């Protein structure tokens, strides 16, 4: 009666971050933080080499889906102020 394929979102769109075997447990804090760091490191490296930052979009989508908006805003402010504690 209910076709399961009709229930899934249309293909080709970003569904949601897939299961990441590096973070298999309940505590996903590091998953969010790591992808945030990876995005900024990727941006920094690609910009330094003068390449397109399109591959970095994956990390952006993941951290944008996982991280609470307030955390991202706080970290972005810290980056702007130069007080961000992570290594980028």
């Amino acid at each position, binding site marked *: 009666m209910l076709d399961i394929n009709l229930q899934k979102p249309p293909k080709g769109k970003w*569904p949601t971050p897939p299961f990441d075997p590096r973070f298999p447990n*309940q505590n996903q804090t590091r998953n969010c933080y790591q992808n945030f760091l990876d995005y900024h490191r990727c941006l920094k490296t690609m910009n330094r080499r003068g390449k397109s930052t399109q591959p970095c979009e994956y990390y952006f989508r993941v951290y944008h889906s*996982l991280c609470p908006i307030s955390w991202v805003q706080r970290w972005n402010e810290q980056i702007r102020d130069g007080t961000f504690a992570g290594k980028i």
Partner: protein
Amino acid sequence: MAYPSQLGFQDASSPIMEELLYFHDHALMIVFLISSLVLYVILAMLSTKLMHTNTMDAQVIETIWTILPAVILVLIALPSLRILYMMDEINNPTITVKTLGHQWYWSYEYTDYEDLMFDSYMIPSEELKPGDLRLLEVDNRVVLPMELTIRMLISSEDVLHSWAMPSLGLKTDAIPGRLNQATLSSTRPGLFYGQCSEICGSNHSFMPIILEMVPLKIFESWSSSMV
């Protein structure tokens, strides 16, 4: 949802909760059997004038009542571990929703596509409409697609809270600075009620949660109308 004079769990609306109900029935049956056996033995011993004052040993029964409890514990442990591992199965969710506990309301963020975020406050008793449930209604419900696996990420912006949904078998602590993941899936459409389950101040009892599970098309039109 809960109803007056309720004795058991709420009706299960997720596969895990169904399993938990069966397991609870199984464990409780064992508890009742042991309790009634003990009660019978006590009553039998108290209601006789006969005595046996020179018992020296009782090897057979001692063996039985050593081995049998171990067997019973294994019979409880095996289904319990089965469900424990079932809860940890790897599944690929179709959508991610974040919920943040505040004093004293929940906020929800759907950021897979556009940024959709809203707060969910309890409706005070003075403002309830006829037919509304006291201390359980909220202004903005969490609308989600039914029958799909949903990743819930739960955290807090101030003190400890806990995001609980009894009919889905979910209760996950909301801890500031930590992002806890729970997997949510509902077998039915409808409204599912829960309440904050970790003491968080004066209005701890007044920050309920309502999940509105709807078909995917309705969820999609709701989320486009909310953005």
